[in-house]
């Protein structure tokens, strides 16, 4: 698999570290327990388009948000998580 790093160009997935769903928002410190449970543990895990976090650990070390189809592995976009 190759991930198109927006900074370094397309690279093999062994240069990256995967974290999982990118669409999760860290709850406020005083959010109810369910919100934390959901953030830390529950996942949509879709078969299809998945927005996910990868770090280009052996490249620019940036965390990226990659849109990828989990059935075909087709990558539609990769953007810097902080931008």
């Amino acid at each position, binding site marked *: 698999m190759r991930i198109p790093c927006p900074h370094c160009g397309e690279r093999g997935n062994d240069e990256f570290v995967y974290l*999982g769903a990118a669409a999760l928002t860290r709850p406020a410190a005083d959010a109810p327990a369910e919100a934390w449970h959901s953030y830390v543990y*529950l996942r949509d895990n*879709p078969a299809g388009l998945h927005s996910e976090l990868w770090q280009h650990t052996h490249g620019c070390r940036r965390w990226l948000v990659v849109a990828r189809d*989990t059935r075909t592995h087709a990558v539609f976009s990769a953007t810097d998580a902080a931008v």
Partner: protein
Amino acid sequence: MGYSFLSLVREALRGQTGWRPAWRDAAPKPAYDAIVVGGGGHGLATGYYLAKEHGLTNIAVLEKSYIGGGNTGRNTTIIRSNYLLPGNERMYEKSMQLWEGLEQDLNYNAMVSQRGVLNLYHSDAQRDVYARRGNAMRLHGVDAALLNETGVRKLYPWLDFDNARFPIRGGLLQRRGGTARHDAVAWGFAHGADRLGVDIVQNCEVTGFRISGGAVQGVETTRGYIAAPKIGLAVAGSTSRVAALAGLRLPIESHVLQAFVSEGVKPLVDGVLTFGAGHFYVSQSDKGGLVFGGDIDGYNSYAQRGSMPVVEDVMESGMAIMPAIGRLRVLRQWGGLVDMSMDGSPIIDRTPIDGLYLNAGWCYGGFKATPGSGWCFAHTMARDEPHFINSALRLDRFATGAVLDERGAGPTPNLH
């Protein structure tokens, strides 16, 4: 006709023409007392034990494709009960005990072979972690032996002890561990369940649930609506997709795990070996192929195939402990969809929807659990409450914090 040497001889004399299907290819009925979704080992075992232990015979196992074609048919067949945490250990040990009498029970040779599982360790710290696990097993009354380097050399003299980057210092051995023939496990449970009247319905995909008043009523399938007051999910890598049809969001991600088989050779590896300083485990099938694998690829996937870095990692790790396999050839590699739970341990429990039960989160280790999982799930479904044996494998443990994190890796399925 029962399976035996005699029946085989009789059939040999008449050209093997007297056999009937190992299980009926049942058409779905409009309603059942209970339905198990997923015709993998777990689903079929659940069907079998529902009938055998709880007398529920008006039941069906629904499989979207052909039975045993999921992870049951694509795993590295290692069975063992060498877990650390009591919540896990008692279930895996129950399973091991069921394996031990399975063939006679099912009248099907699933080739359960207790040739021993040896986990190699490479440092003092790792030895102590294994000792803690081995001691926990012994407290459970389960066999475990901690070998030093000499002990390992006696069993596997040709491992790379001397020239290794991570020298082998010893291993944790469970002699009762071993392998079982993956396909035969599915077919055997199907055969056994069928003989008790369970309908095994293939090419029947569950596409929706009817739920009213917080209770499940039945399932929509590609072969029509089927009603049932109790529905159990045992769909492994598809768990999130199927559960989503019932509105559930779960602590599970689907990842790909690859496996490999080499060309067949004369006996080389007797038992099961695992590498403690990398990701590699291997055994030799009765057909002669080395069956081996490593870590998950580490990203969500439903594609049943992996990527190259893991292939190389597996081969490197294999060569690191067994430099003698360099010239053996990989014959085939494939992938399965493993349902990685957020603490690495399974879930066998009720769900917030009445009558809907969940069997999932097997990660890359559920084959060994097949009989035990089916037994526990059948109990949970039939009695509407978990058995003590699966009482820790709860769905709400993530909310309460009573997680079963064998490796201390935290809530990231890709790190298990």
